């Protein structure tokens, strides 16, 4: 298993909003790599003293001495206001304020940057930061609209003719498109993505734009054009997937991997049926080399091909590659349901959320006033688009939303649903399965509005999954079947109870879909997880 950055369990300061899950980390990497960050050596300082100040500030910031770094940056701006490093120092100040949680200080420095250095390329980065701050603080569509407006300023103020090589513009277009998709504006998003792909110099952001454009075209039914773009992205600079040398530096491996996943899903769900083939042609048993007694939950990462299985009778957690390979196991008390945030596995237990391979844990206070005790009887949990947590717990006929371990609230309480499972869609929006009303609901960005995606007729809906194409999978424990719907709720097909290979479902409890569309079904009466491939 490759090393990954361990995100904190709660709201992450580096997260611009948990949209497509790779983005926050990518954004940070690009910020440093492309000169917007603070560690890069100054290129054209007019004054050697300014350059020394800048380097000293960057060194101190890197060493974690934020206060001293702030002083150096401030001194630079004060002493050398006309130096090319002054606006970069202001960006450094903004970053430091944000790192220390001082939003007000960050906004002050941004104002100075955008007022006094309005035509510098750092100002373009300033608008980007302003947009990211707005996304982080967003609590609904209006806030996102505001954030999008900040992003949109960059291409308007920093056009391609005057600033042909400005990478911040491509990033702004992509971020604006991402927010636009969240806001339900795929056409506007496509316009921005096409501009990013065609009008901007190549960068990781143009690669990202191609991924989003391909996906958006698939979503809007323009399959062939979408697949063509995704295939080109998957091919970018990589004739041999195992060769590090052949990977294009301007397309991230994550974007290429996601493109491959979408292509695989399209093949399975589009091309095979068109050719009269079944979506899944084989049935396999998972994991290999680990004996299960009663699997109670399964989850699949869309990023790294890992699958997490929970066996509540044994108190066992198994992490293994979807295509086969050595598994890792952990013993846990009362494991209920597994999940992934980005590519990091977590397990919902009776009263907390655990990173079983990292040791971190998180518990929540009951949201109702006056009961200062930890929430228990948890059923499922998923992280939302803004880094917040959504939980289901027995006895709570509502969706519980936590923006902090102690700041929770009930959603959907008035509808009296019976939510039994929840997950997130490709854009990070929360979707839950309401067993009482036989429906799948997607939460609006404002937390209160919701949209019914699927109205079913199930006997005992138990689990929910959504794949990279937005297709919805509902496990009906009563029918011992998996019902599959298109993103718009149209029934597509069903699976079970006969799975092939002599496997028959008897007590299915959980489902998951991996990046290539394999369907995992955990059945408590089977000593393995059934995999449809």
């Amino acid at each position, binding site marked *: 298993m490759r090393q990954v950055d361990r995100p904190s369990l709660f709201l992450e300061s580096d997260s611009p909003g948990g949209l497509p899950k790779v983005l926050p980390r990518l954004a940070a990497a690009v910020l440093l790599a492309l000169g917007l960050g603070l560690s890069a050596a100054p290129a054209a300082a007019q004054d050697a003293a300014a350059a020394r100040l800048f380097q000293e500030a960057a060194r101190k910031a890197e060493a974690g001495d934020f206060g001293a770094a702030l002083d150096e940056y401030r001194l630079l701006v004060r002493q050398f206001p006309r130096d090319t490093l002054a606006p970069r120092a202001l960006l450094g100040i903004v970053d430091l304020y944000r790192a220390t949680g001082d939003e007000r200080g960050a906004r002050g420095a941004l104002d100075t940057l955008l007022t006094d250095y309005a035509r510098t390329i750092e100002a373009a980065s300033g608008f980007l930061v302003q947009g990211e701050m707005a996304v982080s603080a967003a609590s609904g569509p209006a806030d996102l609209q505001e954030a999008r407006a900040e992003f949109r300023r960059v*291409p308007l103020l920093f056009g391609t003719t005057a600033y042909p090589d400005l990478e911040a513009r491509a990033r702004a277009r992509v971020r604006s498109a991402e927010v636009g998709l969240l806001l339900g504006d795929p056409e506007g998003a496509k316009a921005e993505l096409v501009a990013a792909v065609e009008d901007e110099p190549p960068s990781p952001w143009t690669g990202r734009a191609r991924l989003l454009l391909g996906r958006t075209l698939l979503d809007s039914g323009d399959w062939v054009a979408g697949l063509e773009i995704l*295939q080109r992205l998957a091919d970018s600079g990589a004739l041999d997937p195992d060769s590090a040398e052949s990977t294009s530096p301007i397309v991230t491996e994550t974007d290429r991997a996601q493109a491959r996943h979408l292509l695989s899903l399209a093949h399975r769900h589009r*091309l095979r049926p068109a050719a009269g083939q079944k979506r899944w042609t084989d049935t396999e048993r998972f994991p290999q080399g680990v004996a299960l007694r009663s699997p109670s939950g399964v989850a699949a990462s869309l990023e790294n091909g890992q699958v997490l299985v929970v066996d509540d009778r044994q108190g066992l957690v198994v992490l293994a590659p979807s295509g086969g390979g050595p598994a890792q196991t952990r013993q846990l008390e009362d494991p209920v349901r597994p999940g992934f945030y980005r590519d990091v596995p977590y397990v919902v237990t009776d009263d907390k959320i655990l990173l079983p391979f990292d040791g971190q844990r998180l518990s929540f206070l009951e949201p109702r006033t006056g009961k200062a005790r930890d929430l228990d009887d948890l059923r499922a949990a998923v992280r939302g688009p803004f880094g917040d947590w959504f939980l289901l717990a027995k006895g709570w006929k509502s969706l519980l939303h936590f923006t902090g371990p102690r700041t929770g609230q009930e959603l959907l309480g008035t509808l009296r649903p019976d939510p039994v499972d929840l997950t997130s869609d490709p854009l990070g929006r929360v979707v839950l399965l309401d067993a009482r009303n036989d429906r799948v609901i997607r939460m609006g960005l404002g937390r209160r509005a919701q949209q019914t995606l699927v109205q079913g007729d199930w006997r005992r809906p138990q689990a929910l999954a959504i794949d990279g194409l937005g297709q919805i999978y509902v496990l009906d424990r009563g029918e011992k079947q998996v019902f599959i719907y298109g993103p718009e709720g149209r029934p597509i097909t069903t699976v079970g109870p006969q799975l092939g290979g002599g496997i028959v479902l008897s007590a299915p409890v959980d489902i998951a879909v991996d*990046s290539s569309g394999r369907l995992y079904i955990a059945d408590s009466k089977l000593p393995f997880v059934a995999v449809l491939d």
Partner: protein
Amino acid sequence: MHTHHDLRPAPLAAAGAAPRRLPFCRVASNLGPVSRLALLLATLGLLLPAIVAPPLAVAQTLPQIEEEDLDESQTPIAEVTDPGIDLGQVQQLFDEAEAVFQSADQPASLPLFGRVVDLLESLRLTRGLDPAARDLLVRSLSYRGQVQFNLGMTELVDASLRQMLEVNSDADLDRDLVSPKLATQFDRLRKSLVGEITFILDPPDAEVRVDGEVVDALSGPVGVLTGLRTLLVSRPGHGSIERQLEVTGGSGVSLDLVLPRESAVLRLNTRPQETEVRVDGQVVGSTGGVAPEGFLPEGAAAVYRRDEFSDELVVEGVDPGLKVLEVVREGYRTYRAELQIVDLLDYQMPPIVLEPESGKIQLDDFPPGAEILIDGEPRVPDVAGTTRPQVTLPPGEYHLTVTSGAARMFSTHLRVADRQTVPVRVRLRPGLTFLGVLGADRSSARTVDQTLRRTMAESSKWTLVNRAEEGPRLLAPLGLDAAGMRALEASSPSAPQIDWRAVQAEADRRAPGLVYVLAVLDNDLVASEATLWIWPAAPGPPRPEKVRVPVGDPASYAEVRGMFERTVPLRRPFIGALVIDSDAVPHPVVADVAPASPAAEAGLAVGDQILGIAGITVTTRSELEARIVASESGELIQLAVQAAGGPARTVDLRLGASPWVMSQRDPGLLDAVAYPELVLLEEKTPREQRWLVQLDRALVLLRAGEHEAAVRSLRDIRAPQRSHGVNQATVDYWLGLALWRVGPEFRDAARQALERAAQVPGARLDHDDEAWVAPRAAARLEALAGGG
């Protein structure tokens, strides 16, 4: 009666003597044309020894001579420093004195003549006088004597006349002008001071010197001042006679002298002057001076002027026998001749012309109308109007450039050796003009300069024109200096505003090429990287592109060369199917088949796996594409295919030919390089494919922000009218974008163009197997509608 034999300039026949044929004369085989001509002339008897005089044996009649030991004190030696006298001024002073003499105030001329006399005497004692100056002194003394005579200064008259005779013992007064009394006084004085000697010489043209001064012994008796005089009679090829003779005033003696013949003599003039002459390898003299009036170059030498030849060099001491004569001068081919010297005679060589050493450059495949530059200077070929002109050059190293307009150049460095013809095949290529390196780190600048030039010199596609010396000087007035360029690269607020159109114009005018490269070091002290600023000549877009290279990393420069080597292909094979990879299967899968395409005709269907091509298994779409791209349009390829759930089968697919639009964002392709290449490409592209080149050019302009120029180009393009692939809808798409970017007043026109593009669902953006136009056009329309 004295016999005078004029040795020059005429051939000896003119001297009345029978020409003598050189019995044997062989010229070394390496002689040039002129020398060969001399050989021919020699063979024909025209290269003749001069017979100076018949070997008369005349008995010497010695005068009465009282021999005395020479007394050194009698030698008029004066310690006079060179007064630095200007003879022109002396002549001027004389003219003034003469004018005064002829005026009413004749006595006033006395001091003037005195001054002239003093000056010339001073000169005579220091460095001697030439005949003209000597004559001027004599005339001055004559005038002075006349004035003194007229003033009754009898004693002074005698002094002047005496001095006059001392200067020239043959001097005389103009008896028509002077007083008879003065003439009588002069004659009396002369008689007391001058004796006469009559020389009868054999050979008659022997040179006679009296006290070292050459006298004319041929014209009659020679006046000699009284006293003990030293006579020296000599002639080349003869023994000399030296005698001392006491001359008394009014006496007349006759000397009959016969000089014994001792050796043969060669007489020669050379072109050029100042050559070294060798006989049998021994240096026997050097030619110099200028051939005198009367010298007439003849034969092959007649094409040259007299003053291009040296004065005659007389080589004596030549023994009879076979002799090798060599005339040598650096930069010229050595003249070499073998001479058979039979008799002890004088041999007059015909004028010897040394040919300059030279080689030739022969230019093969020389295009009509092209210009030749040798080391930057225009040069007319030896014979113009041929496809294989030659240029003759002295031996050395040269930088040869052939240009046919600014668009095509050929440049090479070559070495020319004497008598060598260097064949050079002219391959005109686009000119890449290197304008030098900006930045004060001289060591790094040198490294960049040398590495870049060395690397680009290996280009098979471009001709590097090195203008590194003058480039920075040309560009400085336009604001292109190291600091400014760095600020520009860093998008610094202090960056200068550069008018790149003016830069283009200046470079086009002063250092023409198709593409320009200027290197800027990142640091003036210790540079580690250089940024190469690259821009095309007009009408290419006036926008530079930048490539950064480590100062001393040849591999990076080779990558840059690779960017210049890239070609702009116009066609590529296509199959007409969208093939994708899927993790669910081990081989690429057909996702879409275009109607009436090669794939459709071959029977490919959606869901088919492509197992292999031409017998080679493929596991990814890019492997398949690589095979297809490596094939030729029209080629029949075999695909191993497996339909869903069916058996594997083999299909034959004939590859189609698709237009190939230059990639929009190919990081390895520089617009600055592509544009001029497209200009050249358009000329040699068949008419039916030119629209594609025009589209590529328009796209370069569009990327460079030259929106109006892009619109003008795009509007004229007529692409094939077809429903699928790259077609007119592709052009409309880019036209719509270009119009949009020109300004808001063209938004309607932009929308119409984009709408036309959006309505052709089969249209592709850059290749018949690749990106679709319609969804992009729809997205652009959306942005247009949203005011983007």
